[in-house]
């Protein structure tokens, strides 16, 4: 059993650069790190999506990637969430925002009071009225939560970013220290394997690379892990095209998603303009491309789904090499972060790593399944279109775990959660309301507060939030002023 002394990261895109950076910032100098820039994952990196959840902030901080740096050096903008407009070509529209705990009254979750209101007024209950970032986002506004004032309504508003994967990949790459990480530009010619472990990589530049641990960040094909017998996941084939529309004025602090029979189209509001992504299935290519309407700057075709094992022998996969997720939510980025955190936590101490691999695979599978629950919930509705994009979704909606979640909500508005779900209770609550799921009954404990008293309280709350939102600056103006300030400071 030898000490872990050399780690090789393979890949040339967002996952590889972020993984290398994370290793550089955490590992002891005694462990040699090499980055082999294999291939180019720019086109499939589209599938990391263009928004992140709020947890990226702390993750970045730990890697010394600061918000000012991101804002000053890329076209990144703020993001309160995803707006689904007429999702599934129905009248379901909502802003799936990131929000802190929604609170409780008399020990009963806040949303139960909204459910009661909806049930007794015989109309779809609207949670959005009571979410500060939904109100601010829809009004085109943005501001950071006030520091040190957790009484202010805005302190409940969490935010992530709208970003371009290529720009972020470049930022991470620029932070790699070449004195610490040996970077090689080369493809792989051959992979030598012995007893289920990679012994060496022969590169096209002639070099022979050996290591204790190989990290495969080569994108959906998983060039290394696939040689150890791993099969791709059981998702579905999707195509993506990306275009860009420059803009003088930056758009709102959310990404907008519109549904079409062929799939969906998103507008990500970056600082220099809007990025348009169209996702569709093979069958509807012509309609999708026609409707895309912008020159194609990037495109790809991938199969979604996660591998059975993300770690085999001495090779662990990060990002798309392990799991490709449809970028309909911030899940692809969340999963990438989780992959890296999981790896750092389980980084083997020696060359005997089967314990770590087993635990890694267990957690990986749990994370992947939990993430799919959220995506599955977006496709769990009855009036679905017959087109293949909408009808071929059984692979993600059939899970019993998902059914249990939906049943629990639909019966009595209960938010059933599993261990360590990446999407939290608020995300699920907002999603259920957005998808117009209506509980049959509400929690009886709600009746501790009379309906009329609660209506007064809720109306007041709505007014306050609207007022706060109206006083906030527009996203574009806020960004402009912030950048002026940051430029002066840095």
């Amino acid at each position, binding site marked *: 059993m030898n000490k872990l002394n050399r780690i090789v990261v393979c890949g040339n895109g967002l996952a590889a650069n972020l993984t290398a950076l994370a290793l550089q910032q955490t590992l002891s100098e005694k462990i040699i790190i090499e980055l082999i820039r294999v291939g180019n994952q720019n086109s499939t990196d589209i599938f990391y999506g263009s928004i992140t959840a709020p947890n990226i902030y702390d993750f970045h901080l730990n890697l010394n990637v600061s918000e000012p740096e991101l804002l000053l050096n890329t076209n990144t903008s703020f993001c309160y969430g995803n707006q689904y407009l007429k999702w599934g070509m129905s009248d379901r529209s909502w802003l799936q925002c990131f929000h802190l705990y929604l609170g409780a009254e008399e020990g009963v979750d806040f949303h139960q009071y909204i459910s009661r209101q909806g049930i007794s007024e015989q109309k779809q209950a609207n949670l959005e009225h009571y979410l500060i970032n939904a109100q601010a986002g829809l009004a085109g506004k943005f501001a950071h939560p006030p520091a040190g004032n957790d009484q202010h309504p805005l302190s409940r508003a969490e935010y992530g970013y709208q970003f371009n994967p290529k720009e972020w990949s470049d930022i991470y790459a620029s932070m790699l220290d070449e004195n610490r990480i040996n970077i090689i530009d080369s493809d792989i010619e051959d992979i030598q394997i012995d007893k289920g472990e990679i012994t060496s990589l022969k590169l096209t530049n002639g070099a022979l690379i050996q290591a204790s641990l190989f990290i495969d960040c080569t994108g959906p094909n998983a060039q290394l892990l696939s040689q150890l017998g791993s099969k791709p996941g059981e998702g579905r084939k999707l195509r993506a095209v990306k275009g860009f529309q420059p803009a003088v004025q930056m758009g709102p602090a959310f990404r907008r998603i519109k549904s079409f029979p062929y799939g969906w189209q998103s507008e990500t509001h970056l600082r220099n303009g809007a990025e348009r992504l169209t996702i569709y299935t093979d069958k509807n290519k012509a309609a999708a491309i026609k409707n895309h309407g912008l020159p194609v700057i990037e495109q790809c075709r991938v199969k979604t789904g996660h591998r059975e094992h993300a770690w085999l022998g001495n090779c662990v996969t990060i990002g798309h090499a392990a799991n490709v997720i449809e970028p309909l939510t911030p899940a692809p980025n969340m999963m990438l972060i989780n992959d890296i955190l999981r790896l750092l936590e389980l980084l083997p101490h020696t060359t005997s790593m089967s314990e*770590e691999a087993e635990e890694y695979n267990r957690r990986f599978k749990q994370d992947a399944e939990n993430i799919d629950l959220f995506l599955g919930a977006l496709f769990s509705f009855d009036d679905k279109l017959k087109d293949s994009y909408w009808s071929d979704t059984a692979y993600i909606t059939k899970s019993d775990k998902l059914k249990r979640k939906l049943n629990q909500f639909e019966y009595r508005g209960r938010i059933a959660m599993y261990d360590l779900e990446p999407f939290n209770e608020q995300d699920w609550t907002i999603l259920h309301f957005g998808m117009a799921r209506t509980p049959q009954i509400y929690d009886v404990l709600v009746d501790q507060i009379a309906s009329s008293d609660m209506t007064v309280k809720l109306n007041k709350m709505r007014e306050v939030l609207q007022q706060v939102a109206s006083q906030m600056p527009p996203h574009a103006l806020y960004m402009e002023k912030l950048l002026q300030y940051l430029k002066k400071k840095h």
Partner: protein
Amino acid sequence: MNDTKPKLLKEITIVGGGSAGWMTAAALARMLPTGDVKITLVESEQIGTIGVGEATIPDMARFNRNLGIDEREFLKATNGTFKLGIEFNNWGKLGDKYFHPFGGHGVDMHGVDFHQYWLHSLKAGNTNSIEEYSICSVAAKHNKFVLPEQNPKSVLSNLAYAYHFDATAYAAFLRKYAENLGVKRIEGKIETVEQDPTTGNISALHLEDGNIVKGELFFDCSGFSSLLLDKTLGVKYRDWSQWLPCNTAKTVATKQDGPMLPYTRSTAKETGWQWRIPTQQRVGNGYIYCDKYISDEEANKVLLDGLDGEPLSDVRTIRFKTGCQEVFWEKNCIGIGLSAGFLEPLESTSLFLIQQGITRFIALYPNGELPDIVRNEYNRLMTREFEQVRDFIILHYKATQRDDSPFWRYCRDMEIPESLQRKMALFQHGGRIFRDENELFTRASWVAVMLGQNIYPETNDPILANIPKDGIQHSLSSMKKSMEQITTKLPDHAYFIEKYTEMKPQSGFTMPNTGKM
């Protein structure tokens, strides 16, 4: 959209007036909307209660708080003392001693768990045990106690505590509380239970005195007899005695003399273990063993030899089978307390499981139709709860190096549930804790028992190699020093209780008179 108001349960009937019955009655009376539901409790003085169950875990304070019970009143009424953790003797090897504290050890740094630092420091010659970095252990060792501080910067913010108390007095205390909130108590022995011939639901209880108590939803809190769940509805029992072979308890109380310790003591014996639980006036003692390996008479002797005070009564014998019901909620009946299952009191979890049974029910509070969707969810959650506690208790038996008796050899060599096996293997390999989110026992608890019972990881976290050894040593020394310094200033446990219970209840609290507070 359906009906505007959920169809409500009108009647809840609780069978049994031990801790389980009165905790259920009190919590339901407090939490459910006033006047909507009639709560009745039937108990039999002739049968009596089990009357043990004196040690708890920190969640107990939350339960009382939710009921609006003032801590001082509670301590006075139940002869309560504070508990900072459990001292385990002779578990890993004969002569070993470790402390399982509530609250964590040390402070995590740079995203790395504290125990990894401690393990790392051993290599640099650190000879302090990990518990010397836990404020609960340090205070317990010096027989000190104080309430935790709110300020997260203070060492005392890491202090967590539970109680030792008189279980019978607690049931009586809650009885008064619940009756004040309108719970109706019926004294009488239930002779037969009537079921609806079509649904199989329980419809009425027939008492010895001819009284008939009808009901809509029943809680079976009838103790080991499991009158409704087992005897009436025929729910099967999951027997876990292959992993937890002890099946008998001998109990006796002794007079409290000597210092009032703020912790429970658990001493492993040749065929089981003995507890010592200090309340204000007396000390609860008990010997838990497997009758396959020792006769009852010998067990009596072991118990009496292990006492450090005069017994106040004769020794009681209690038989049990470790395990739980296959379902906790069957038809219109929910089992809570001993009727639902029993896990030996090694980590004082029974009252906690009662508490969970009640809070889960309230969280899922059904309408009058008691749909499967609610029942199934309740059963799923409670099964998980029992299994997680089970694994943690098995760990104490499995992680032993003792081979001085057939009992310990059996425990050391037995097969264990896969879930626990993985946890142990992962720790053994690299000191990592298998993650399960909503698990009762925290990382610190698993670490305390594994290290306490000599499971030392084979390798150390590579990330630590980046941090200079001197820096680690310095941080550890200053943590230890600050704990010692603060402990010297803390009051003695007995003194603290005396002064604390003399103080007036905090504003807002009184025993409820009528209606909801």
